[in-house]
């Protein structure tokens, strides 16, 4: 006992001093050390359980964030930024009781410049709130993750999030021009530039997608996109998912880049249709939503072309939404897919890989086979236009041994995607979930280059450690997916 007991006591004393310094820095009412807050912030929306939060700090300003970072690192304690916790790869899951810096109160839209098509926001502005704020201005914020009602722009920046309309408009990185960042040494810098590319290295570009391991974004300048003058939405359905996939490739190869191109398989349609009444045919093997936007003449050309491509590749019906109401209904099904699926089984695990779009059909078939062998259910709802798969495993976490099979299925999905020339993640990030797979895609030299960049930002290794890059160190009680006690997603 002696040794361990003494260590525990020292750690507790260390934590007391840490908490005292945090309270002195931002006020005791904004530092929570109780079990409730620490439990609340111990997980995100991934299936990863077992995280352990240290003191939870509610920052209200850049100065607060910088003060918390300085105090944490002065105590040799790690820190992790927290957005809305909708992340799916465990990026916000705290490892080994770090200081959790919650930005909930930094939720102001600071400035909107319609002429320059630019807005400065604080990190906890919810993605959809910005677009709602802009309604009627003729501009919007283009990245539209399916979680946009809940996720924050800070989280979008950290994960370089995507969404259906990122096919034509690009993912978050293409829409972030500048960032105010608290670096892991507590200094505050602005990366990027409001107008042109900043001089020198694109440090803005590497910060986007760094999952909180390069520091904390405290103010974000985003580019606003003009609303398209014309938008048309098509719903195509197929009796064979391979035909749907070939239609996708044919559209791209013909030189049409739709605003969005989303696919759902029969399993998803069966789950969604009863709830939403989107008009998806229940007997189809796959439905494809194609949205075209731009100037009216070009859009109507493209509508004809896409319809023709679909029919040439075996589409059974091609429906063009007649009005805004029908268009909204078609999208409602897609956007509520995850919520609807939660009704099938209590647990689900949403995966995310990218494959060359010409190989979508064979990869989906292989994944289905592999998952069936493991006696699990998988369905697909994904960004077909850029080959971004989202295999969705549904299961009952109370079933003994099921989590081992879920973990095995996840590994199969990764293996199949990589064998097809794909990558580990298209938008959810690596976090804790996929760091052990990194060596399947990258050589030690590739990973060493990534670590060099990380060390330049985070010299002490205290900014959201253990995420992204594989290390031998473990994240406290998080044991890997196989031991996750129960499905989440409430």
């Amino acid at each position, binding site marked *: 006992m002696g040794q361990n007991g003494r260590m525990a006591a020292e750690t507790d004393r260390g934590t007391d001093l840490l908490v005292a310094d945090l309270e002195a820095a931002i006020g005791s009412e904004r530092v929570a050390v109780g079990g409730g807050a620490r439990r609340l912030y111990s997980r995100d929306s991934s299936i990863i359980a077992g995280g352990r939060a240290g003191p939870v700090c509610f920052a209200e300003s850049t100065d607060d964030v910088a003060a918390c970072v300085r105090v944490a690192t002065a105590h040799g304690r790690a820190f992790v930024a927290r957005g809305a916790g909708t992340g799916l790869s465990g990026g916000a899951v705290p490892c080994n009781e770090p200081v959790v810096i919650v930005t909930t109160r930094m939720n102001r839209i600071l400035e909107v410049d319609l002429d320059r098509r630019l807005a400065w926001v604080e990190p906890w502005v919810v993605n959809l709130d910005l677009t709602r704020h802009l309604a009627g201005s003729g501009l919007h914020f283009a990245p539209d993750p399916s979680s946009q009602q809940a996720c924050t722009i800070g989280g979008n920046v950290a994960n370089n999030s995507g969404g259906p309309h990122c096919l034509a408009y690009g993912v978050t990185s293409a829409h972030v021009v500048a960032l105010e960042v608290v670096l892991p040494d507590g200094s505050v810098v602005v990366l990027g530039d409001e107008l042109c590319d900043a001089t020198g290295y694109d440090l803005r570009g*590497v910060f986007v997608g760094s999952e909180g391991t390069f520091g904390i974004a405290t103010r974000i300048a985003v580019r606003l996109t003009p609303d398209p003058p014309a938008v048309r939405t098509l719903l195509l359905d197929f009796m064979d998912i391979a035909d749907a996939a070939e239609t996708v490739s044919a559209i791209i190869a013909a030189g049409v880049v739709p605003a969005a191109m989303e696919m759902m398989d029969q399993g998803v349609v069966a789950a969604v249709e009863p709830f939403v009444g989107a008009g998806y045919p229940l007997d189809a093997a796959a439905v494809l939503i194609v949205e075209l936007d731009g100037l009216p003449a070009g859009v109507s050309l493209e509508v004809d072309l896409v319809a023709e491509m679909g029919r040439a590749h075996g589409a059974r019906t091609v429906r063009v939404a007649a009005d805004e109401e029908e268009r909204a209904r078609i999208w409602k099904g897609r956007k509520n897919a995850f919520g609807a699926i939660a009704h099938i089984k209590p647990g689900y695990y949403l995966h995310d890989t990218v494959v060359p779009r010409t190989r979508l059909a064979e990869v989906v078939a292989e994944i289905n086979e592999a998952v069936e062998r493991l006696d699990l259910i998988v369905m697909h709802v994904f960004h077909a236009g850029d080959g971004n798969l989202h295999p969705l495993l549904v299961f009952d976490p109370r079933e003994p041994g099921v989590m081992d099979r879920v973990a095995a299925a996840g590994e199969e999905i990764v293996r199949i995607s990589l064998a097809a020339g794909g990558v580990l*993640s298209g938008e959810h990030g690596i976090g804790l979930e996929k760091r052990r797979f990194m060596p399947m895609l990258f050589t030690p030299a590739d990973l060493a280059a990534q670590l060099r960049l990380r060390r330049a930002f985070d010299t002490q290794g205290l900014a959201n450690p253990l995420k992204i890059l594989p290390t031998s160190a473990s994240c406290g009680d998080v044991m890997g997916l196989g031991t996750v006690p129960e499905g989440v997603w409430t």
Partner: protein
Amino acid sequence: MERFRDEVGADGAVCVRGGGTRWTLGMSPYVEADEGPEVRVVTAPQGIQKHDPAEMTVMVGAGTALTDLAAALSLHGQEVALEGPPGSTVGGTLAVGHSSVRRPRIGAARDTLLQAECVGADGALFKAGGPTVKNVTGYDLCRLLVGSLGTLALLGRVILRTRPVPEQTIWMTGGLLPSDVLAACYRPAGVLWDGTSTFVRLEGYSSDVRDEAQSLALLGLSGVDGPPSLPMHRDRWRGTLPAGGVLEVSTGVLHRPDPAPAAPVAPAVRALADRVRAGFDPRGRLNPGRDPYLVTA
């Protein structure tokens, strides 16, 4: 790639030469070598390895001339968002990182690079990014390499995002203010202003271009063969247009006849950049005389 790796080797200062079109941007790679040890000049592999039109990607040696790449892609009605003076190579254009005047429509040079196989300062090959058009696996090292003037690693072979060539392209000009032109059309490919006239590039389907051209004609703009010739130095917009200057309105890039000094860099940013450079090239052997922070825009 192996030949290129061996040429770079693990020791001694090296610089990589593309088309030599912007050889002294961010200082000459030779500068320090004038007094110090010799700087070896290496060239990256050439040739188009694989164009995959349905994926909208192309794999190409960094030493390939942009014109050769453009010719090959155009066979399938595609292009890349990279532009440079005659003789520019793919690698040189990425290392410089300047975007096309068409950026508002076709995207930035830095968004073009999907994967890079490089030789690092230790003489070993490493890969940044991945082959797919969408990817958030690990850090976005490709963004770091674009515009780095070869100071972090030397580009050998790359995968680039391609895009469809627009069906039609026209330039128009007139006395309307740039903001009025921007308000009158939807996502023009580029808007330039020389202090007197605005130039706008429209591209897309012929029918769309015709419709927008008609409405701009009503506002007094007329067709013109091309953009004004751009003076040779680049700067960033600082609120006034110098004599002979031409501004890229949406991106704030200012083309001017006389050189302007680089904008000052905040010390904390500079310190971070220095750590990045030292991390990738601790012995300072890659393009030793060059400094991306001396490039004005």
